[in-house]
């Protein structure tokens, strides 16, 4: 370790990956419905795509977690994005191709992708 910059680099590289263990209240949470219906409708590739995006963009304080059946199986795969201090946004019939837009517009820039949300589907 010859410089502070190197120390910072290691810190930043690792923090995003373990920050879920601290400050749960300050992190953005992506909660994906992963009951049998969700998995059957293709929730797993969607989740993997989210993890991929977070990893490549090096986002900190974003966690991906699962939940059971949300109760509207016809709209699966469904997921909630919870940004601290903002209202919960529910996306429905999510496909892997839609994930980068959700991450870029909603999680990074704070603007939910209206056309994918449950409001648009109803």
């Amino acid at each position, binding site marked *: 370790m010859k410089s502070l910059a190197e*120390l910072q680099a290691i*810190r930043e590289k690792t923090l995003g990956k373990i920050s879920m263990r601290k400050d*749960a209240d300050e992190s953005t949470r992506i909660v994906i419905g992963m009951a049998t219906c969700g998995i059957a409708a293709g929730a797993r590739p969607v989740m993997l795509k989210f993890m991929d995006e977070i990893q490549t963009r090096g986002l900190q304080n974003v966690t991906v977690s699962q939940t*059971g059946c949300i109760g509207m199986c016809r709209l699966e795969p469904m997921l909630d994005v919870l940004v601290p201090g903002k209202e919960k946004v529910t996306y429905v019939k999510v496909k892997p191709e839609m994930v980068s837009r959700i991450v870029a517009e909603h999680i990074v820039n704070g603007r939910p992708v209206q056309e994918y949300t449950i409001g648009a589907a109803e």
Partner: protein
Amino acid sequence: MDLYRAHVLVCGGTGCTSSGSNELIKRFEEQIAKHGLDKEVKVVRTGCFGLCEAGPVVIVYPEGTFYSRIKVEDVDTIVAEHLLKGRIAQHLVYKEKEEHEDAHLSLDDIDFYRDQRRVALRNCGVIDPENIDEYIAFDGYQALAKVLTEMSPEDVINEMIKSGLRGRGGGGFPTGTKWKFAAASKADQKYIICNADEGDPGAFMDRSILEGDPHSVIEAMAIGGYAIGASEGYVYVRAEYPIAVKRLQLAIDQAREYGLLGKNIFGTGFDFDMYIRLGAGAFVCGEETALMRSIEGKRGEPTPKPPFPAVRGLFDKPSNINNVETYANIPQIILKGADWFTSIGTEKSPGTKVFALGGKINNTGLVEVPMGTPLRDIIYKIGGGIPGGKAFKAVQTGGPSGGCIPADLLDTPIEYDTLTAIGSMMGSGGMIVMDEDNCMVDIARFFLDFTVDESCGKCTPCRIGTKRMLEILERITEGKGEEGDIEKLEALATNIKSTALCGLGQTAPNPVLSTLKYFRSEYEAHIKEKRCPAHHCQKLLNYEITDKCRGCTACARVCPVNAITGNVKEMHTIDTTKCIKCGSCMEKCRFGAIVKN
């Protein structure tokens, strides 16, 4: 390291390891692979979570779900339900009390953690102690970087003095002042030493820090080295702590590989490296001068002070020695500032203290609380009170050097000076709770037995004096106490305290003096009435049969010495001269007719 959506943290402290956490880790890895989740879920072995009572403990993030007493079979459920389908396995989640319906979901909701404040233990149970990157992610080595690039050694010492941090190894000496003395000594070589001997029976906070967050100690020792002008450090650990030794060595190797130990750290020209020395686990080797002799390869015996280590210490060079927990506080103080630290705790004892709660208490384990927290809160709120509905009697702090604190002093705020004022001491943080069944004379005997065993024998007051005290206590507990014994104990205690060479002898009489102070009537009952009020001392017990006796003869048949006589269906009696007080009859009697007095 790749991104994982969920982390399964399994406690790998000594307690949970002995209750099988290694098998759990293996099973988690197998099951996670079986469900094809190995790219999504990571299993991490951490240090101690503190609530050892509920071990083995597993925490699943991001939810922070706290699973307790997990068996290998339960792992399959957690993986199939929680990790695969996102459904928390409610029946495995930690519950505060059996009758509680609602299972707790996360750490912060649990009584045991709610009133704690984790500074020294902040990373224990949160990071993987074998992965330096995780320590760095949570601000690790930032304090060292700050010190080396922005502060002069005097700045560091002044910040430490301002923080008011006092030694957590027992004495409570201000750390900054100690560093200042060592910095003032001129020499070609100085040393910085970490005392991880932890000889106090029942104490295990230092072990847990080394097991759960070894880098915090390494970082702090490097900071100390910079402050006093030492380029070498030694950690003296007892060999009975194999997990701690292994993780510390690994951490040192990783720090060296990153150049955080070695030559020219951060390109600032500062050199520092450190080594582990193993101790054989003698209590006296925790005393600083004995410890340094032991590192030098000599007999672990104390030497007179002065000269103090800051003037002539290890290998006759100026040295600074601090305790593990003291060090674990230091990186935080440097990063967040002395003002932050003094905002926690009390004016005279800033910060927090870690205690090892044990004895007659529901939640045994490690707790860290702000100084000034009343004993009552630690025992009842965090510790969950006394098991079995028994009455609290006393709490022993400071181990064999400390004293017993009775119920009417439970509202005493815990800090160095208040504890000393009531005849106990902070010590290293062992806290043993006693209930109505504990005999205080026997407790004093127990601790004195320990010191007699551990006395190095170098000086007469300790070698012979404590032995005489122990003999008197043994007589008293056996019903052979005599008029004048209490006075003899007091005279011996005063003499030993003022004449013994080292802290071991000087504090050895404390358990006797404090129990004499608060529980004198128990001593008197033993001596004058040959009676143990707690019904604990076997030789003073008398078994008696009351009129609940139905004459079933069960007791007479079980008595190994035929001390019980009586006809069928008539009340039986015990011949107390024959009775050897084995207790078998009492156990056998179905009518509760036999009592001990």
